[in-house]
């Protein structure tokens, strides 16, 4: 259909309505600034308002916090990325009994059915958070495949307080997403939800029914 391409671009060019580009005043995006502690509080407040659950942890004890959650919920298994930093740290101290760690180490085609019906929860790291509105930034990829944060009914995400940015605007700048982006990048603010039936909020429509943030206070 390169004919269509030529015709469309030709018509757009012929329209010739060019002119000085209007200037962009981005001050409104830069007004939002908080201290590191305030950022942590804001993020939590924003995400809790949309049913995200928080587990408090320290840099040393977060694997134990994840473990305790799994035991408490009686999860059979937890999907994780064995080569990701967070995944490797989690596996290092995982006790063999109880909830089984399940590595996402094969192409999805090899266990699609199991992924959909036999996995209780998925565990991923994050690359940052957004204080203004509440949200996690994720960069899935080879170490933590894309479906880990989507298909299992519970998504457990590890967030270090020091990586929380003021706003999505500042996060895009800090992460350098403006210039080049990974194959998939995500902003996630809560568990999957819908208001399509009579404007009534219902959680867990297609994606995870629960989002658990393990918030590591590394500000000290």
């Amino acid at each position, binding site marked *: 259909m390169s004919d269509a391409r030529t015709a469309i671009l030709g018509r757009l060019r012929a*329209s010739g309505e060019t002119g000085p580009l209007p200037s962009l005043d981005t001050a409104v995006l830069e007004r939002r600034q908080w201290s590191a502690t305030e950022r942590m509080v804001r993020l939590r407040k*924003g995400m809790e308002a949309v049913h995200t659950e928080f587990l408090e942890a320290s840099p040393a004890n977060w694997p134990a916090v994840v473990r305790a959650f799994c035991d408490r919920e009686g999860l059979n298994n937890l999907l994780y990325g064995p080569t990701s930093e967070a995944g490797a740290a989690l596996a290092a101290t995982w006790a063999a009994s109880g909830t089984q760690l399940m590595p996402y180490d094969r192409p999805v085609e090899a266990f699609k059915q199991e992924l959909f019906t036999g996995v209780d929860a998925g565990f991923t790291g994050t690359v940052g958070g957004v204080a203004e509105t509440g949200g996690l930034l994720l960069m899935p990829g080879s170490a933590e495949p894309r479906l880990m944060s989507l298909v299992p009914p519970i998504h457990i995400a590890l967030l270090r307080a020091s990586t929380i940015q003021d706003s999505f605007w500042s996060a895009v700048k800090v992460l350098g997403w403006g210039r080049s982006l990974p194959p998939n990048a995500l902003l996630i603010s809560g568990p999957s939800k819908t208001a399509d039936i009579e404007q009534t909020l219902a959680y867990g429509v297609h994606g995870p029914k629960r989002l658990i943030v393990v918030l590591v206070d590394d500000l000290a």
Partner: protein
Amino acid sequence: MHAKSSEHEILFRDSASKALLDPQLRANFRRAMDGLITKRRNQFPDPGDLQDLRHLSTAIRSRSLLALPELLEQFEANCTKNGIQVHWAETCEQANELILGIMQARGAKTLVKGKSMVSEEMHLNAYLEAHGIEALESDLGEYIIQLDGETPSHIIMPAIHKNKDQIARQFSQKIKDAKYTEDVDELTAMARRVLRQKFLDADAGLSGVNFAVAETGTLCLVENEGNGRMSTHVPPLHIAVMGLEKVVARLEDVVPLYAILTRSATGQAVSTYFNLITAPRGTDEKDGPQEVHLVILDNGRSRMYADPQLRATLRCIRCGACMNHCPVYTRIGGHAYEAVYPGPIGKILTPQMEGVGVRHDLIHGSSLCGACAEVCPVEIPIPEILVRLRREATHEDVGSDVLGKGTGRTATEDWAWRIWAGVLKRPALYRVATWFATRFGKALPAGAPLIKHWTRTRTKPVPARRSLSERMRTEGANHV
């Protein structure tokens, strides 16, 4: 002069009148729209911030349009570099054929769809089904209306015209093994069960595109449910469709547009998911689609682009705020428009896509109150564009590119104006006509032809006993 009879036309007047008589429909809409208006208002506590964000958003959309051909080329080049295959379609037909071709080349027989208004514009589902491909909507609202063979009544909340009882009845009849329940969580769980299996089995997934980033070759998708992520990441093949106006220069441009989109649309500061897709599954990746295709659709957009005033139509980010605040839409709902895009934005889009003559009375079904322009996050002057299209419908202005210009005249309107012009051109006749109107206007029955359309819902105006010029002649003017 074309005098077009309105016999075969879908009359907005008729469908709107019918909708007004349906108390259930009106109650459903009133409740939903009031909720959305309040939620949006709460998201903008500072009017100064709102105006700054609107001006910025408007400037970004205008800038992107000014550079549109260059941005589209840059976007295409970067997508291609990332492994996304780009296709172009001038018409909906071409776009449908392209999608069918992409699916057939992979032997794909089933398609799960994330929400996409462009695919509605293309009537893609019907086309694919006619070619033996199952196309299933997975957005809960879209799924609900697809079960009943309906079309969306709102661009953001497609099933907003239905209430819980109606959906409960529908699910219990149409979903296998479903019991009757009015519990929203249980209804949602039923849809989840059905659709999860569909995601798992589907050969291909389709999505729209909220924003396209030229500099990185990225498709941005905004959603709450996760069905968009499912449709784009579970099946081995992902096909995206977008109108050609969606492209912006940089990801930084998307940030304010995204912020104002979710706040204007559903009164949320942020959506549950903001999904940025830049490439298909990489060689070292374990999931994600093996192939990503993008179809860029024109369907009249380049014609809107050519006109300096109408080009503003293309700034739209499809937030739906104009319909939520429209005194007409909130009373009659979306179906009365009998068009893919309802509400104020639909009133300016539909005639430009299908022709001003075809939808002649649609552009008149507005009081031009301006509520839409006041809330529009990208400041589209919808009332001004409506007035312009009203002119286009009845004139054949040289230099105008509007589809079907001049074809919206009706014989009655034509005659009325001819008589009016004839009288005004002849002073003697004018005086006689005024004399009759002032003396006997009162006697004209309210049910007289033509007049009855006005008097059906309004009191009949009574002309003054003497016209202004008569009184000036006899009483003189008091020049202050």
